[in-house]
């Protein structure tokens, strides 16, 4: 296990509870739509509103997605799990209890792996269980009151609980990113963090190395990776300050305020720790037969970790590159298409990590929205490989392609006069002229000054207006001066 820099002599311990909204059409216990952004309470049916006499009926699609996740993280998919009631009063919780899973969750164990500073890290999962989302409290003023919208109530959630295996905010962010990428890759969650489809609660504590775990505070509802890191960093400093002042940490649920960058304890839900869990008498045990698990397994996409291994093994990519190529399913598909078209895996990876990613990030778009197709990128890479265009030239061509100036790589190379001079006759002539015109440099080179040789190559490139192939030019010079 990697060792982590202590912060002011303290070791940081972080565990996650992540809520992923499952991408079903209908809710986990009712036939109401899960679509985001509808007018308040227009997607809250009698079951979601807990109207007297209503009963829950579980959604097969939600269970199927939980199985997919369980298989993806190498967990045990429980042949029998139990829905339980978590009892507490809150206006966004219509029944006065949340249907969740307590003693026997549907997914047990498993792990999530990712790279941290080029090193492979693996975080153990405790469990993942199915439950229903709550509604929303709208705190902007409604005549001094709070407005309750229950459209979200009953949206299926997979709560993914990690062991306290994380030791820094940076590692926490990498874990969260890897988990996010995985649920999106599996197609079980749309991953839209702005809309709350993927929400992280971080349990943070600090301790002196070797000591037992310190008291943890839970930072709730972190819905961006940046906030996640900021919140953990602030929380760690806050806890250390307290301990250094000889004060104790009390277990608490805290909220992160992005404006101040600070965390503060929630005032509500103080007495909510006696949830009075018991098996929901409206829902018999959830039974998942082995053949169902096998059907789900058969329909699973190749997992990112396996695909990355394949890219290392078959394409000879370095681990880091392979991980980058599998950052999302679309990214991996782009890489594979381009690689297939030009047979230059490393060059494709370099371009995707460099020029392509740079532009994607700048425009904040995904690769599926890139204006350059895998085939076009492959064509350009082919021209770099066969020496037709220099790397600098290729970058200019790529700019043109991205900017929509054209899609025909060769035409753009011609139009921009970026074709490298591969006609040795013409090059030889230039080389002779340069040797003749630079007697001083020639002398110095013969005297053993490599600097002078570079100067001569530079002269050749200049004289050829950059169209000479530097390698070829250098070769000719050595022959003639040798």
């Amino acid at each position, binding site marked *: 296990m990697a060792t982590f820099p202590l912060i002011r002599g303290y070791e940081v311990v972080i565990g996650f509870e992540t809520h992923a909204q499952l991408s079903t059409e209908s809710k986990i216990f009712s036939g109401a739509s899960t679509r985001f952004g509808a007018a308040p309470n227009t997607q809250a049916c009698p079951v979601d*509103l807990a109207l007297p006499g209503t009963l829950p009926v579980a959604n097969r699609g939600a269970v199927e997605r939980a199985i997919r996740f369980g298989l993806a993280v190498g967990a045990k998919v429980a042949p029998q799990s139990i829905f339980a009631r978590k009892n507490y009063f809150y206006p966004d919780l219509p029944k006065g209890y949340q249907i969740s899973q307590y003693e026997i969750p549907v997914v047990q164990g498993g792990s999530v792996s990712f790279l941290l500073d080029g090193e492979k890290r693996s975080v153990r999962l405790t469990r993942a269980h199915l439950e229903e989302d709550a509604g929303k409290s709208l705190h902007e003023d409604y005549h001094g009151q709070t407005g309750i919208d229950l459209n979200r109530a009953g949206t299926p959630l997979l709560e993914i609980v990690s062991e306290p295996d994380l030791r820094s905010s940076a590692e926490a962010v990498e874990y969260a990113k890897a988990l996010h990428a995985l649920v999106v890759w599996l197609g079980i969650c749309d991953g839209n963090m702005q809309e709350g489809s993927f929400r992280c609660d971080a349990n943070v504590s600090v301790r002196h190395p070797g000591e037992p775990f310190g008291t943890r505070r839970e930072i709730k509802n972190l819905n961006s990776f940046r906030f996640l890191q900021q919140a953990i960093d602030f929380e760690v400093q806050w806890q250390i300050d307290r301990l250094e002042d000889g004060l104790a940490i009390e277990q608490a649920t805290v909220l992160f305020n992005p404006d101040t960058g600070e965390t503060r304890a929630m005032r509500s839900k103080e007495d909510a720790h006696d949830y009075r869990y018991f098996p929901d008498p409206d829902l018999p045990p959830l039974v998942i037969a082995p053949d169902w698990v096998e059907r789900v397994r058969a329909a699973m996409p190749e997992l990112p970790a396996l695909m990355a291994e394949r890219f290392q093994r078959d394409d000879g990519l370095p681990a880091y590159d392979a991980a980058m190529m599998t950052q999302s399913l679309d990214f991996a598909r782009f890489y594979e298409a381009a690689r297939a078209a030009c047979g230059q895996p490393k060059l494709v990876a370099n371009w995707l990590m460099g020029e392509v990613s740079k532009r994607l990030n700048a425009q904040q778009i995904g690769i599926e929205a890139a204006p350059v197709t895998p085939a076009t990128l492959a064509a350009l890479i082919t021209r770099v490989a066969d020496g037709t265009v220099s790397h600098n030239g290729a970058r200019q061509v790529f700019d043109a392609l991205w900017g929509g100036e054209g899609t025909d790589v060769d035409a753009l190379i011609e139009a921009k006069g970026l074709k490298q001079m591969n006609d040795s006759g013409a090059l030889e002539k230039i080389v002779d002229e340069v040797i003749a015109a630079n007697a001083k440099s020639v002398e110095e080179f013969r005297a053993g000054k490599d600097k002078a040789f570079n100067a001569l190559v530079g002269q050749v490139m200049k004289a050829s207006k950059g169209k000479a192939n530097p390698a070829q030019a250098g070769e000719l010079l050595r022959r003639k001066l040798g």
Partner: protein
Amino acid sequence: MALTPQDVSRIAHLARLELQPDEEARMLAQLNEFFGIVEKMSAVDTGGVEPLYTPLSAVQDVALRLREDRVTEGNEREANQKSAPAVDDGLFLVPKVIE
């Protein structure tokens, strides 16, 4: 093991019930009488017995029936909110919630 007045107020709070002092006193007496009746249950050895959460599982395996993932409910907000104590443009109103 008898309940204390503190137990009663703790439970009443958990259950969100405001009890008047006389109610609490009566409740304490009745709960203690009740748990007197319950004691003989605690004595029974139930080692190795599976709890019976749903009756039919006494004689057969009972598995949760699952519904297909289909949207079957439309917008019936008006009918569904007909008996709501306080509503404003489709939102249920409650006293300010402080997070």
